[in-house]
């Protein structure tokens, strides 16, 4: 054996090839899902001032709720707050089945999470930032949206619900 050479056992070399192939497969699957099928993570949307976002009359979150922007297409402005009582505003939304809803969520105090059960909508809610993601609701039923980041003692009771009517 020559000196100062990398000595790699054939079994180990094969294992490294196998690992590399496996990683390429994973990376391809993730990339196809992201760029081919459009399953994307949130992108920067807009910045807001958390101190005034709930009260400024020009802020959509001073009057949170659903806006129908086209038939079957909605924007949902949702405000998360821990003070005074850990809730999402509004607490309830109702839409007809087949609707597509774009959520715009922000916080007027601490960090929160926003996860709509049984959908891909799951993101951080960070004061100063607006989180945006679109979900299409193809099945009637009740979908809870729950807070997924610790935001104080009432974190575990913080949720709302979407009723998707047939």
């Amino acid at each position, binding site marked *: 054996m020559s000196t100062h050479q990398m000595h790699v056992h054939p079994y180990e070399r094969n294992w490294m090839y196998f690992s590399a192939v496996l990683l390429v497969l994973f990376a391809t699957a993730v990339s196809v899902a992201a760029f081919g099928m459009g399953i994307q993570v949130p992108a920067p949307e807009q910045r807001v001032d958390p101190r005034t976002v709930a009260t400024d009359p020009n802020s959509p979150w001073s009057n949170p709720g659903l806006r129908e922007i086209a038939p079957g297409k909605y924007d949902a402005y949702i405000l998360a707050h821990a003070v005074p009582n850990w809730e999402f505003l509004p607490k309830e939304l109702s839409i007809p089945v087949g609707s597509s809803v774009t959520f715009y969520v922000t916080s007027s105090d601490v960090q929160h999470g926003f996860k709509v059960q049984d959908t891909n909508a799951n993101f*951080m809610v*960070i004061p100063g930032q607006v989180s945006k993601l679109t979900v299409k609701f193809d099945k009637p039923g009740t979908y809870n949206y729950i807070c*997924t980041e610790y935001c104080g003692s009432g974190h575990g009771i913080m949720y709302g619900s979407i009723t998707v009517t047939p």
Partner: protein
Amino acid sequence: MKQYQLSTGEKKFIGLHLLVAMLALAVGSLFGPLQAFEHAGWDVYPLIRPLIKSYYQGLTVHGVLNALVWTTFFIMGFLTFNVMFGLKRPLKNMILNKVGFWVMVVGVVTAAIPILLNQATVLFTFYPPLKANWAFYVGLTLVVVGSWVEGWGLFMTYVAWRKETPNERTPFIAFASILTLVLWQICTIGIATEILTMLLPWSLGLIENVDPQLARTYFWFTGHPLVYFWLLPAYISWYAMLPKQAGNGKMFSDSLARLSFWIFLVLSTPLGFHHQYVDPGVPPVWKFLHSMLTFGVFFPSMMTAFTVVASLEHAGRKNGGKGALAWIGKLNWSDPSVAAQLLAGILFFFGGIGGLANASYNVNLVLHNTAFVPGHFHLTVATGVTLSFMGISYWLLPYVTGKKLWMPKLAVAQAWVWFVGMIIFSNSMHVLGLLGAPRRVPLGLAPYVPAEWNSRLFQVGVGGAILFISGILYFTVMLKTALNRETVTEEVEVPIAEPMQDPALGPVWLDRWAPWIYGTLALVVIVYGPQLVEMISNIALTSPGFKPW
């Protein structure tokens, strides 16, 4: 050949690290079952209200003491041992290391006071604008600074050794330990910046507001390499000690072991955005880049799996093991140090697979902040790392105290009980996460829990109870060992698995520090720099503090 001997004072110094680590784990682990019981609907917190006010105060104690204090103190003690024993020389400047250690101790006490007074119920991630008492941030800073100082002491020792022995290859355990400390120095820049430029002046009232998105970015700059800081010391033991203990095995490939450590150094830091896939303030292009680098760090993990298993197979066959897998049964399972680390490795394998799922960019939309995440890190840090450290302590405590390990059979049982409890606990947490259950919620009291979660929530409680029994066994064995009247007749043999191939025959570039460190820094600047510059130049200090607990 007689092994290199540490002085009594040096052993005592390492023993002090173990003492603080174990005290932290003992207190922190008291709260583990309480969180688990709470999931099953058995709310114990009202009973201890005079002492601990809430589930979240308990969760903060659990996270800070177990994930930050137990790990850091054990690691600093173990790495200090590895450097001295590996280089066969005393510390260059013992006083510096002692200063570092005591700064860490003062830091823990300083942070513990507000935590116990319910003034820092911010969990171990302390995301602003949750605002803790200033002493919490001062305490954390001192722990990090103390660990830096201890690291500098070890670097000086290494440099002195290098001057004395310019032509020798760095012995593996010393090499890997120094590398782990280099990683720690680089990655803690994030958390230091977060605390010193934002959280500390803010908690002292010097600034009014902070930028929570930027704070999260600093935090995760440190947060992911932090898990490698926990993990690499366990890997050192798996690579270079466990094969020896398991049956006089040798390390299969010294060169590839070193190469995988170098890749861990290079790739551990520049991938922190994979904890921020669903943050609104980070552009997807950077998140995607970090996800690909995260896949990259999977590669040395696979190399580690190969080398460690091959070295163990060498041990098993030396013990007379045959067949494709039957050799596993011939490993020294009756040695508690071996049993604990083998079981830790088995569960860590599954933790690694779950980690790949977390890291997979858009797959994280389904998993982020669900119970899947604590399910995952109880397989990795709470088993792969913690159960391995328990295994290491089964020889290291007798080594530093000169006391005989008390009831080794009970110690073996402890490892198995942990293994069983963790399978039940962690499996049910993973399933709950896939069903949509959030993390960090006392689910026994949450109003939105569907009936289909109930059987799993019950299993979380059962798993927690079994783990608690294992914890009691561990501390019984440790305490009884420390107080044991029976001393070891000869100094405990330090298990070192010699490499199959002489390290001096490996490539020289595996023993050069500068190119790797410059490369690491360059990669960090490339994949973090532009976005950090963007966020800092557009900093929005608009969030005042809140204390909603």
